């Protein structure tokens, strides 16, 4: 009824190939962006911005990064946490070596360093695949973790052994460090995430994305039609690690405001992998859904008993949260193995034909 593209004629190829070919989609995305950019910073409280929105966006970006690798190229990686760590530590080194350089450039620089590291650890992917590759990326995870702890140069030899985020400003407004306002940091995170999502969308719709998907569907066949495997797989590793690196740098500089090596442990890798699988492999919007579900669900579960007036002690809630999240993961996989993105598509299709069944 309301959501139908009937009557929207396209007269150019550009219009036909647009990211959002349907007018209602364009309106919808405009409304979402308006809420995200205007309503939330104006009316959201600190808890919503600091503890929900910023981490949600950062995790979404990391999930997009992993999705480019696992969902689009079919290379399973368990080293996401370490690549995020590389981004964070590289950003820290860059900004302490060049304090006058814009912090945004340092964050992106952290991403590029992560991309370089990603390429190195992606090299085995040419010969090994599937779960074997997952173990190879575990090597990256544990080796880099060890480096974060054992190489004091990475944290400028400070006594705490942790990243201490310095104060950096953009146009005179503090954006990192203890004095930065949550709303400023939120807007910065949001802008970066939106721009990078848009770039990822262009990538996967273009030649590179097609190459990735061909490799994912069957790498030997892809090779036979003239796709060179090594450059394709390595670009996937590089781009994915770049996204994860930027997400990691933002995590430390714009969310935590300081971090130890434990933050980037294997658990972070698993969390991001959950988001990608639950959200939907090979879907950008799915990465957002996955991040929302995996990150926000435990928050809601923790808040639920107090809201409902049931008193359970904190440890029990924590354990129950684990159980419920675990059970929900299995349930989601059973109900819809292709993730929340597929549910979204089904919903949209239903809406298009509504109120008729076909």
């Amino acid at each position, binding site marked *: 009824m309301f959501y139908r593209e009937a009557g929207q004629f396209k007269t150019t190829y550009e219009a036909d190939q647009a990211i959002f070919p349907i007018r209602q989609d364009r309106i919808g995305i405009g409304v979402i962006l308006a809420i995200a950019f205007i309503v939330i910073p104006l009316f959201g409280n600190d808890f919503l911005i600091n503890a929900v929105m910023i981490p949600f966006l950062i995790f979404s970006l990391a999930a997009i990064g992993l999705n480019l690798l696992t969902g689009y190229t079919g290379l399973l990686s368990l080293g996401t946490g370490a690549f995020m760590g590389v981004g964070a530590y590289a950003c820290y080194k860059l900004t302490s070596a060049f304090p006058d350089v814009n912090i945004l450039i340092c964050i992106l620089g952290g991403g590029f360093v992560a991309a370089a590291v990603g390429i190195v650890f992606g090299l085995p992917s040419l*010969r090994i695949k599937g779960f074997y590759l997952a173990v190879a990326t*575990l090597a990256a995870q544990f080796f880099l973790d060890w480096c974060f702890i054992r190489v004091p140069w990475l944290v400028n030899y400070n006594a705490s052994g942790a990243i201490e985020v310095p104060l950096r400003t953009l146009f005179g407004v503090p954006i990192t460090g203890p004095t930065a306002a949550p709303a400023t940091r939120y807007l910065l995170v949001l802008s970066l995430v939106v721009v990078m999502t848009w770039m990822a969308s262009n990538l996967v719709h273009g030649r590179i994305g097609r190459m990735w998907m061909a490799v994912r569907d069957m790498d030997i066949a892809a090779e036979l039609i003239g796709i060179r495997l090594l450059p394709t797989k390595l670009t996937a590793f590089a781009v994915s690690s770049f996204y994860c690196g930027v997400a990691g740098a933002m995590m430390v500089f714009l969310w935590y405001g300081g971090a130890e090596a434990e933050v980037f442990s294997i658990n972070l890798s698993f969390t991001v992998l959950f988001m990608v699988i639950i959200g939907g492999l090979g879907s950008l919007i799915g990465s957002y859904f996955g991040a929302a579900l995996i990150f926000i669900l435990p928050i809601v579960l923790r808040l639920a008993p107090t809201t409902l007036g049931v008193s359970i002690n904190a440890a029990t809630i924590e354990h129950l949260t684990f159980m419920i999240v675990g059970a929900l993961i*299995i349930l989601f996989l059973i109900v819809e193995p292709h993730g929340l993105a597929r549910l979204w598509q089904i919903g949209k299709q239903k809406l298009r034909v509504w109120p008729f069944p076909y």
Partner: protein
Amino acid sequence: MDGLYKVFVEPFVQMGVAPDLLVQTLWEGLVAGVLYALIALGFVLIFKASGVFNFAQGIMVVFAALTLVGLYEIGLPAFVALALTIVVMLVLAFGVERLVLRPLVNQPDIILFMATFGLTYFLIGLGELVFGGNPKVMITDALYLPRGAVEFEFAGGFVALQKIDIAAAVIASLMVACLAVFFQRTRIGRALRAVADSHKAALSVGISLEQIWVIVWFAAGIVALATGIMWGARSDVSFALQIIALKALPVLILGGFTSIPGAIVGGIIIGVGEKLGEFYWGPLLGGGIESWLAYMIALVFLLFRPQGLFGERIIERV
């Protein structure tokens, strides 16, 4: 030159000078390797029969050990607790088959892999809810496991072997022998191998997949219980063991995902390599290299033999 000397000459000189230390390190590596192999064995059992890469094996080890200690603590005799734990593992196997595997039949590997992740979370929550998050002490004495150490003289020094380690090695070898006989000689074992080769073909000759899955998950549960007892006797029974279980992955890679002897040989190579590396080369890098050395060994190994030591040859067709 000095650096090269330290890396390539000095460790070997040390080995020659103090052979007793070398033997001690080798022994420790061997024991660690046997325990890795036990965890890897649980993975291999399930992977062979259902193609599921069971991430939950680590937590199953913890869960089995916790159940055993928990039941003992509420006053049951040790062997009754042991029997009940086996029953719990059987129930778990049935539950997993009914609630996780059966609805997910015919899904891609990665989905099943993620489902075992969900299972891991669930078991962590359940374990902590029922038994509490604190580390527990394994009931070594009540199970009549030996304690203390045997020392003997060797090349001018002493080598100390923990009795519990010897017991672990013996039990592990017994278990592998039993599993080998079970797989090769019994009717069910043959059915298991048939399922491993092809689900469809096995179904068409009348093998019940559901039954087979319960059996392998139960067998993996028993292996997990044995592993839990042995690891628990060496350290505490705590959820940290679950991370150690990840060490079974490089073992699997070395041995190949589908090979039981591979798991054993891989475990021993990884265990010995890790301990030797940590003891002789670790100080050069600032220590703690045990955490990643195993993965690096596996990674280098994979570059030369992508299917592992004993894995089946990978044949790819378009």
